């Protein structure tokens, strides 16, 4: 029987999420024996023609060409995975969505008129149907492995979405908000990283995106109360996953509190 084919694509991103696949040092050769990496430019030169069983897309949509490309890729892939926070929420480059690209371009490039770029950086699901989202900046490589294995075994992947705050409690990490008065996005951020920021003595910065059932209103009130300088909470919510709808609402709530 032919091996299922996997295609890995890059859009606007840092490559870190694709790298997470190559960072499966103990599992990579077994995975490559189980599935056929038919298109994976970061890893191999050879490409096989589509269609593919699984498409894995890293990065966000930031250029007119990327809009066309994602439509083609959707047609080529039976099952499409958005890999990482760029693909699921537009990533750090979605900070442009809160200002004007022309202002940013002038500050970076002497001749911004040469640029071909969109006003926004958007998630893959804003353009095509996405079958599975794996969050994280970067993703947890074991979640990628779990997703591929689950698909092969025709079961639902186990990707927990509870707030990472719970993981701190389970690990016995002292709460940085309560103990140090440090702002932390943990109560509203999706599990998956291993709660590493509080374990390193700092607050969560929300890189795994919003947890679906979090208490955003309460978090907004707490964050606003703990700020060390004006706008700290807004900057924290508007960073790596800032374009995700729940985090945008969190910013709206914070801005209302600050006006009061």
């Amino acid at each position, binding site marked *: 029987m032919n091996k299922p084919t996997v295609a890995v694509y890059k859009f606007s991103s840092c490559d870190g999420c694709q790298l997470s696949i190559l960072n499966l040092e103990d599992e990579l050769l077994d995975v490559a024996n189980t599935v056929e990496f038919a298109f994976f430019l970061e890893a191999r030169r050879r490409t096989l023609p589509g269609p593919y069983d699984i498409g894995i897309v890293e990065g966000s949509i930031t250029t007119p060409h990327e809009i066309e490309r994602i439509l083609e890729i959707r047609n080529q892939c039976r099952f499409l995975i958005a890999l990482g926070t760029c693909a699921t929420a537009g990533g750090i480059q979605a900070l442009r969505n809160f200002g004007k690209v022309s202002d940013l371009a002038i500050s*970076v490039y002497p001749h911004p008129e040469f640029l071909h770029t969109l006003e926004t950086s958007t998630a893959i699901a804003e353009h095509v149907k996405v079958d599975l989202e794996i969050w994280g900046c970067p993703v947890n490589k074991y979640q990628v492995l779990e997703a591929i294995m689950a698909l092969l075994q025709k079961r639902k992947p186990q990707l927990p979405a509870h707030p990472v705050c719970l993981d701190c409690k389970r690990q016995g990490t002292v709460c940085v908000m309560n103990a140090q008065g440090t702002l932390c996005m943990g109560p509203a951020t999706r599990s998956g990283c291993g709660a590493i920021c509080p374990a390193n003595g700092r607050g969560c910065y929300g890189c795994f995106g919003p947890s679906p059932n979090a208490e955003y209103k309460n978090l907004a009130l707490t964050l606003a109360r703990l700020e060390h300088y004006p706008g700290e909470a807004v900057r924290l919510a508007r960073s790596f996953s800032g374009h995700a709808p729940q985090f945008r609402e969190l910013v709206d709530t914070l801005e209302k509190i600050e006006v009061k």
Partner: protein
Amino acid sequence: MKQNIEVPALARVEGEGAIYIRLKNGEIAQVEVNIYEPPRFFEGFLQNRYFQEVPDITARICGICPVAYQMSSVQALEQAMSVQISDEIRALRRMLYCAEYIESHALHVYMLQGPDMLGHESALTLAGEHPEVVKKALRLKKIGNALLKAIGGRSVHPVSSCVGGFYRWPDSKNIKALIADLEWAVQASLETVQFAAGLTYPEFEMDYEYVALTRPDEYAIYDGEILSSKTHQSIKSVDFEKSYLESHVKHSNALHSHTTAGATYFVGPLARLNLNYNQLRPVTKAAAESAGVTLPINNPFKGMIARGLELVEVCDLALELARSYNPTGPSKMPFKVKAGEGTGVSEAPRGLLYHRYVVNEQGMIQFAKITPPTAQNFAQMEADLWQFAPQVLDLKHEEATLACEHLIRTYDPCISCATHFLTLKVDRE
């Protein structure tokens, strides 16, 4: 070969790029290393962010060398706010940097350039023929990633670094637990040097101007002054922009770096090795001697040997730093936020990485400038292709194309890094 060479999508590089070589009457008429990686405007959206967010944000420029971005940015911001770090913080930063080198160089030697040298399209097929080589590479890479995780919480975009030092000292037992692995890594790196030195490389040499950090007392990676092989002068990081310029050239539609004299220059492992051989650790020098390495190496394909030697250097250094790791004192220096301007330079695995920031009295970024290594090498890659392509014109088209691709891969281009790179519009006849 009579056709133009076109590689529409470079494989086994980080990010998205292409090569285009146009022939006219059998002569090379045009050479372009096209970058279609979209711009992400980091310098733009760093403005009005709080200074302490910068190391986390700039890490996202590159998934393979986030530590380099963190280290150049924290040094620039510490200079801006007159923060002096302790020797212990500096030692831990060097260990973190070693971890990134292990991961990045093992990846490049065995999985990105290695397949070209061994006639494979990827490490995946190489594993079929030489499983022991690929397994060794993966174990070496894993040790680098494990050390990154022990110090920074995770291997891609680690979370522990900040302006002033580290949010917390990493747990000593997690670092000591890697000592046995690092001992193995030193041996594996010595074997890597033998392996790399024993290969037959394409014959090609250029008279490069090498530019790298230098220090009198150690092989410079984390910090130092900027030395050029042509001027033999070292300059401080604050003077970088006086000697090295970026221009936004319409014909190539990308930012190119040149010296103020208008010359292309070369950054990366070969530049470091050629300029700083004397500062290598004894074990690294011995490895070079026993492998018969003579300097200078002016063949870019032999960057693989330089990476092998640097693997020995950073594995041995990481081992020493891990053994002596016993932090006391604050992990983060106390300091007052103040207005200022600062520059920071460190050696990313693929070359010199420069940052400059202006901060206001509230600690908000007013200006940011980042010059990544691949942007600096970009003009040199094209200059190389002008010289190299005629040499392969008589080969079959597929072989000529592969040879040109291989040349670009030797630079370990980190195209996502090169945030200045733009969509390239090519006019074809």
